[in-house]
């Protein structure tokens, strides 16, 4: 006959804390990867704002009035979230922004694919080597969005600046 679990609530809490720790630890390489990816993605867009604006316009989703505003602002948001994610500063906030951006990129890609556009993704570079959009880029974007959601849910920045700041606050 099965009885109640041995150890009671204290052990259950300890097990949950251990699980949280493992999930947060596993989130560190994910966070570093996503952060690096977004920093890298922002570089060409900041350097070549006109090219990036042309990329945005090619998707034919945004009205002309918003194309340049997006082309100017988006790369800096990518850079900020990327750097802060690498540092583990305001980790969840940046993961939320990153997941939002990935959702936006994935939706844009899906619309372009459904319309049968043959065009460059505009994700990292608009040079000749730039990739053409396809099912592969779509699946890849969904995977990156999933990683961002993982970071949002399970990484509280305890192994980054967030963790250090929390420790300092506790000691103060």
């Amino acid at each position, binding site marked *: 006959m099965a009885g109640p679990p041995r150890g009671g609530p204290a052990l259950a809490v300890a097990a949950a804390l251990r699980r*949280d720790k493992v*999930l*947060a630890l596993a989130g560190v390489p994910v966070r570093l990867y996503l952060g690096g990816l977004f920093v890298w993605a922002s570089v060409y867009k*900041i350097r070549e*704002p*006109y090219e990036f*604006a*042309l990329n945005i*316009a*090619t998707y*034919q989703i945004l009205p*002309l*009035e918003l*194309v*340049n*505003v997006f*082309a*100017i*602002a988006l*790369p*800096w*948001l990518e*850079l*900020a*979230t990327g750097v*802060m994610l690498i540092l583990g500063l*305001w980790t*969840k*906030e*940046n993961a*939320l*922004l990153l997941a939002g951006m990935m959702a936006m990129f994935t939706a844009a890609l899906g619309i372009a694919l459904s319309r049968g556009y*043959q*065009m460059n993704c505009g994700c990292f570079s608009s040079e000749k080597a730039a990739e053409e959009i396809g099912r592969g880029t779509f699946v890849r974007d969904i995977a990156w969005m999933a990683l961002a959601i993982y970071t*949002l*849910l*399970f*990484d*509280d920045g305890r192994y980054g600046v967030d963790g250090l700041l929390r420790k300092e606050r506790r000691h103060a």
Partner: protein
Amino acid sequence: MLSTVSPARLLLRSALIAAASGAVALAVNAGRPDSLPLVAESEYEIYEDCPEGEESATEIALDEIAENPAYFLIVDSREPEEFEAGHVEGALSVPYDPLFPVSEEEVERVRAAVGERVVVVVGDPLTARLLANDLATQGLDWVNYLEEGAEWRVLLGADPR
């Protein structure tokens, strides 16, 4: 884990990051020599694919032609000398240079010859494909070219000249 930050605080801080990065973006853009205007002054010149679709020629298998040769008009895109050296019986010679569009006279000649049949362009694979598309674009219906790798000279086997 989500509970370590309250949702309101999460959203507020996210908005703060977005606003701060937006402000930096605008400041940097204002200071750079190749700055973008906030609103584009004219439409971007977007590269669009050539309109193809219904007007395009289609690929056809060699077997289909061999099974019902009477159903097809073979249009030979090679040079006249090559055509004279040997061609499929009943084929129409339409020498084609991919650098120039097919002339209206040639299109009318094909239209007059084809009747109820279906056009299949043969010759050098790329040239044949380009002529087939050119004819289709000029308004001819049911224009075909041989699928990649198919050797049209097989059709010569029945009645080589």
